[in-house]
């Protein structure tokens, strides 16, 4: 019962994370894998503010969303101002830096993490588990809907154009940087939301839960499901949450399962990357008209971007 519930809750939370990360990576083409840190910021802000200032849990979760949003702006503003490349490392540095700070502060529970977090619902009642599952599912649906709304319609057109060809996009007078910062902020805020929901159900958080290796998990969900598709991340999240659980009932020797899961999923990504780059739900990529142009001495960026044409 509780087992099933916690699986469902994790699925819901990871749908939120994957969907919002997809907005950042898949739609906006922003190279950040620091998504877990905003998840973490949400979780920490929410649980600590409730703990110290005795505000209602809901308020705590909202606060978590705001903090995650603000931090994302603080990160993307300087980094994107210069070049997309800087966001890659800035985000990683930010992720590890913040985790390091959390580890070293006493009032964050330090490296040991936060125990005794106030649950959102009374933790004894069995029904509360169900209502939590329901809540998380609603939240997940809402996130997916939000992403869908953003990437369709006028704003969506701009996003698509930016992703297709950023230079051509800018040359038309579109401010790509602002758009990216906004999208990064929204995505991160969603992650913060998920963080709050996580903290007030599992009632324990520690810095190690938000480190680089988590980033890979979310990345896998997005890539396998299908980058830049609405439902792709949902499929990815469900798939990658359910599979290991199923696997765990096969009763394989433990020494194998740990790494093999990792191998399975990273391997999955690599396969998809080369054989089905658009993921499970992805459609064939639009053929690029763009081909090497001889006269165009300067068509290559002055500072290296990830992967030249």
């Amino acid at each position, binding site marked *: 019962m*509780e087992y099933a519930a916690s699986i469902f809750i994790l699925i819901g939370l990871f749908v939120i994370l994957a969907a919002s990360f997809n907005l950042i990576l898949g739609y906006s083409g922003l190279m950040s894998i620091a998504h877990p840190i905003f998840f973490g910021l949400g979780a920490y802000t929410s649980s600590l503010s409730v703990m110290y200032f005795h505000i209602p849990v809901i308020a705590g979760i909202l606060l978590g969303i705001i903090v995650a949003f603000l931090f994302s702006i603080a990160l993307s503003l300087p980094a994107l101002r210069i070049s997309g490349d800087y966001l890659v490392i800035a985000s990683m540095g930010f992720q590890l830096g913040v985790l390091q700070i959390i580890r070293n502060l006493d009032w964050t529970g330090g490296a040991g993490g936060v125990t005794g977090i106030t649950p959102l619902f009374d933790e004894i009642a069995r029904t509360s588990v169900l209502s939590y599952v329901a809540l998380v599912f609603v939240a997940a649906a809402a996130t997916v809907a939000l992403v869908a709304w953003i990437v369709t319609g006028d704003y969506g057109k701009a996003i698509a154009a930016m992703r297709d060809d950023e230079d051509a996009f800018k040359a038309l007078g579109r401010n790509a940087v602002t758009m990216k910062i906004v999208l990064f902020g929204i995505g991160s805020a969603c992650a913060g939301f998920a963080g709050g929901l996580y903290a007030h159900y599992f009632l*324990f958080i520690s810095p190690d839960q938000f480190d680089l290796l988590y980033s890979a998990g979310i990345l896998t969900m997005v890539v396998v499901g299908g980058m830049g598709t609405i439902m792709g991340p949902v499929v990815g999240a469900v798939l990658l949450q359910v599979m290991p659980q199923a696997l*765990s009932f096969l009763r394989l020797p*433990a020494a194998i399962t*740990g790494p093999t899961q990792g191998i399975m999923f*990273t391997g999955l990504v690599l396969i998809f990357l080369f054989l089905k780059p658009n993921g499970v739900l992805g459609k064939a990529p639009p053929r690029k008209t763009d081909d090497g142009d001889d006269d165009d001495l300067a068509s290559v960026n002055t500072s290296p971007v990830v992967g030249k044409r």
Partner: protein
Amino acid sequence: MTTRRKFLKTMLAAPAITSAHWAPFNSSAFAADKEAFSYGVALPLTGAAAPFGTDQVKAHTWAVEEINGAGGANGRKLNPIVLDTQAKPEVGVAAVTRLVSVDKVPMFVTAFSAVVAAVAPIANRNKVLELSVGANSPRISKLGEYVYTTYPLADVDVTLLAKYAYEKLGARRAAVIFVNDESGIYGAEVFRDAFKKLGGDIGAFESYEATGTDYTGSVLKVRAANPQVVHLHGNASDTPIALGQMRQLGISVPVTTNTAGYNPELIQKIGKAADGLIVATLAPGPKESAAVAKYVERWQREEKRIPNNMPNTQYVHDSAYVIKALVEEVDRAGKPFTGDTLREALLKIRSFKLPLTETVKIEDDHTVKKPVYLIGVKDAKYYEIGLYE
């Protein structure tokens, strides 16, 4: 025992839970008369804590075999359901949730501070008894009604080290260097406070990162304090490196350390540089106890080595006997096996006589008092210094 370095995660947030029902017991001679007693064992079987976790599980399994072979807990065979925690909180949470709600166990044993703390809410929420068999964080004693430990918290051994350094080594100026994680910080603080209380003074109090590769700055700050003794509180994996770098940077004074220093590889890797190390362990060694001697023998025979962090494996081994006692107690009272009845039994018995760790007494404040065994290193060999109450 410590929350150790971060390790490879499976790529998922509710990561690998591996359940291995230990086949032999299901098919043992007296399966007929009484229903077996199933309980959870949540220890790291993968990740870098695996070298310790797997040895602990092996030790526990041996104990279970002995017990079941000798007729079990008055006719009930013990059936441990072993799940992997990777020594990571979130993996532990998933594993224990599974134990509690799928396998419906009334109690489980686990170790590693972060995991013990992370799963405590589940134990309390479901009224299931959580027995920590290897965690030294101060929080362990304050995790709730259903969380108990058979393993002494750091203050027991580290306080003694401070005392030994002050009285036996006659040190007045000490320095502390520790790994920057929960148990490292806590252990270091215990030593600092204990040593100051005795009237000594702490020249330097420096940490290093478990994921770091270069401890130069911290080590030299310790050297600059020019201490008469250094307390090193690390994890089994980084203690050799830390000690090595200290010796290579000219810190030649005696170094006291927690049980993490009781590790054959340490000697093998830094050789004579390990001389002057003083390790506090919380379990008797082969010299003090014939049972332990036999235990070590079996390791040598079957694994050609002594277990990683042996004292810990002794506690995990003996946890099977604690469970045996609890089961018998509950059976005697003719009660069903629930977290509550087992907890009552635990508090009723309180003092357990155990094969490898001798007397373990559960205190009201959820802690355990134990004598401490000091082990020294001379000419790149461990030798017993003595037993301290």
